[in-house]
């Protein structure tokens, strides 16, 4: 057993591969060069051909989100050259909400009679991680985080710590959230996102109007301690905070940089969770101004939309920029910024706060 006093932070942890299903072309990185710019506030994911990954006999009971999660998991494992991860850890804000609604509607409409057991069985959040485990016959560590906008961040932190401690050597970390018309409308009601059309220029203007849009997320990421030819980048650190002062973020940033023998000038950019919702973006902006004002800002929700697990795309975008040695103009929040070549270190800042006095925040550092 490893104890705190013996603990040293010298283990390198890598992001080996990522695979996603979203409003962008599924299971590819085509968005990097030819992104789809969504026009609807309730943007739909593009479904791949699931039959290539899951035989119909196996998928007959699976809801949409389970199919997506298994597909991105198998795809990420293949890309990363891994057959069996040591751990499967997912983040999901709402779990399989489609099945949850199906069961909930049945409870209400049928007065608790004749209820569909399959829908209930799939309504629990951990169904995602466990269905992946069943598909892979993986007996390793298996867990699920459901903490609103830091669900994926929590899953990644758990994996990171276990890798640091040498408890595991690889982990399949996922962020999986689907959206239904009913839940979309409910969250529109409480101003989480826009109800109708959107465009990117509107999203940039952080004024009074809500311009964020809903995009579902299924992203699987293989992380591990082996550096291979497939490795995308290094995950140098990740930290979670609850209602931090900006100065705490600044302190943490310095600690992270110091631990990795870096200085402020080594950081090429910060990925921020700007969404087009001024109620949120003003706080994101506040933290950036107070704690990370020296870096160009990358954003991603204009391409992937908002969901409880959209922070997974923040890590993904940073990893791809490092891997492709380019931060393209389309990812830069400030339209005046020019593309950045050969980035070496990118920060990822994620803010979630329905209650702005108690936000949950994460800061990660990714390096080549």
């Amino acid at each position, binding site marked *: 057993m490893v104890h705190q006093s013996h603990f040293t932070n010298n283990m390198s942890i890598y992001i080996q591969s990522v695979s996603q299903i979203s409003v962008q072309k599924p299971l590819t990185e085509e968005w990097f060069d030819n992104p789809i710019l969504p026009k609807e506030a309730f943007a739909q994911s593009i479904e791949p051909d699931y039959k290539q990954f899951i035989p119909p006999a196996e998928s007959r009971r699976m809801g949409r989100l389970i199919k997506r999660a298994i597909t991105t998991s198998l795809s990420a494992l293949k890309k990363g050259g891994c057959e069996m991860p040591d751990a499967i850890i997912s983040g999901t804000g709402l779990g399989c909400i489609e099945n949850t609604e199906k069961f909930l509607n049945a409870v209400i409409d049928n007065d608790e009679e004749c209820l569909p057991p399959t829908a209930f069985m799939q309504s629990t959040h951990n169904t995602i991680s466990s269905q992946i485990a069943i598909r892979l016959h993986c007996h390793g*560590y298996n*867990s699920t985080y459901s903490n609103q906008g830091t669900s994926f961040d929590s899953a990644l932190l758990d994996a990171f710590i276990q890798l640091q401690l040498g408890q595991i050597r690889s982990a399949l970390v996922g962020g999986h959230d689907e959206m239904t018309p009913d839940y979309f409308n409910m969250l529109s009601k409480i101003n989480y996102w826009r109800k109708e059309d959107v465009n990117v220029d509107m999203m940039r203007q952080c004024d009074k109007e809500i311009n964020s849009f809903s995009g579902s997320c299924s992203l699987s990421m293989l992380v591990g301690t082996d550096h291979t030819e497939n490795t995308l980048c290094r995950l140098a650190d990740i930290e979670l905070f*609850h209602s931090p002062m900006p100065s705490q973020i600044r302190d943490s940033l310095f600690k992270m940089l110091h631990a990795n023998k870096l200085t402020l000038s080594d950081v090429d950019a910060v990925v921020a969770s700007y969404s087009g919702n001024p109620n949120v973006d003003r706080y994101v902006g506040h933290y950036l101004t107070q704690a990370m004002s020296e870096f160009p800002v990358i954003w991603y929700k204009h391409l992937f939309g908002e969901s409880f697990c959209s922070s997974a795309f923040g890590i993904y975008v940073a990893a791809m920029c490092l891997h492709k040695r380019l931060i393209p103009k389309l990812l830069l929040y400030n339209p005046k910024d020019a593309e950045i070549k050969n980035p070496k270190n990118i920060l990822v800042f994620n803010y979630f706060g329905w209650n702005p006095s108690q936000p949950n925040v994460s800061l990660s550092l990714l390096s080549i």
Partner: protein
Amino acid sequence: MDGIVVTGMGVISALGRGVEQTASMLLQEKSGVDKMRILKSKYTSLPVGEVHETTEELLDSLHYRRDKVITRTTLLGQVALLEATQMAKLQKGLLEGKRVAFISATTVGGMEKSEQLYHDFLYGTEHSEYIALHDCGACTNMIAEITEQDIHYSMLTTISTACSSAANAFLLAANLLRTGRADIVVAGGTECLSKFHLDGFNSLMILDDEVCKPFDKNRKGINLGEAAAYLVLESPQTAQERGVAPLCRYAGGGNRCDAYHQTASSPNGEGAYQSMIQALEEAGLQPSDIDYINAHGTGTANNDETEGFAVMRVFGDRVPPISSTKAFTGHSTSAAGALEAVISILALTRNFIPVSLNFKEKIDSLNFTPVTQTIRNAKLRHVMTNSFGFGGNDTSCIFSKL
């Protein structure tokens, strides 16, 4: 002293409020499982382990207005969190420079309110403020508010692995402490009863219409329950610096996946077996060191037999005293791992072994019977508690005397 210690615990369940009441009910062999009184389900004949306080009574006890926008899952969590943090003296002034993390587990979250207000959410104009309280994470965030005068949590998160959720909170807590990411962690879980999950378990036809009989040959299923429980975990050094006397040690945990079926355990209990083995390895203990097992023991045909097989695989023909306390409390799903950790620690520190209520006849295929009479003056050094969930999310934790 090395490792991780428990310095506080808090609990509310069908057995009542607080650790003293819980211990007293266990020692008196009094079950809290009873007729449905608070949940508004049509299946009133199903016994449940309800917290015997209405939501209004919970609100009053926490000095909230009756119209406070909050869910029952959150209220239960707040009651347990207050007790745990007070016991561990997590008070302003005693936490200077200490990072305190909060990890809470739930699956049902705000469902109990959502199922009442769902048509308003969809079609109405009222009660929209409850939409933001539906999800699991919303509960954790709001639970934390009850201690905001004393504690600023440096991070918080929510685990949702169905019936093993709260036990997994302890595993993450231990790792946060081991890596120095937190100095103190409050970890556990909360779950209130809802029609949604009562009907869900009913649709799987695994609820018993009498008080459940874990490990009995003629067991018929689960009684659902509700509860919240938290432990405060920290290093012995931190506890000493703060002048807090530890209750026991957290010796280790194991999380493994059965990877067999969404609702059924594998015939030989592979995941359960591996999680117990892993917990023993992490604790650096042999099976023979375990003096008591608080079993998952839900009372379903499938769980009790496969858990029994797994126990036999780990402990051979020397199965230590084992009991399921689900007939006392009902199965409080996401909170069960924390509730039973509290029960296990009470047993460990007060030297007794709680009985497995309602047991009459041995399961043919098992080589052991559960404890049927409270064992007092039991000399316990190490206790194991099992928490197994849907999808084969199997977790075991071990607590040891100081």
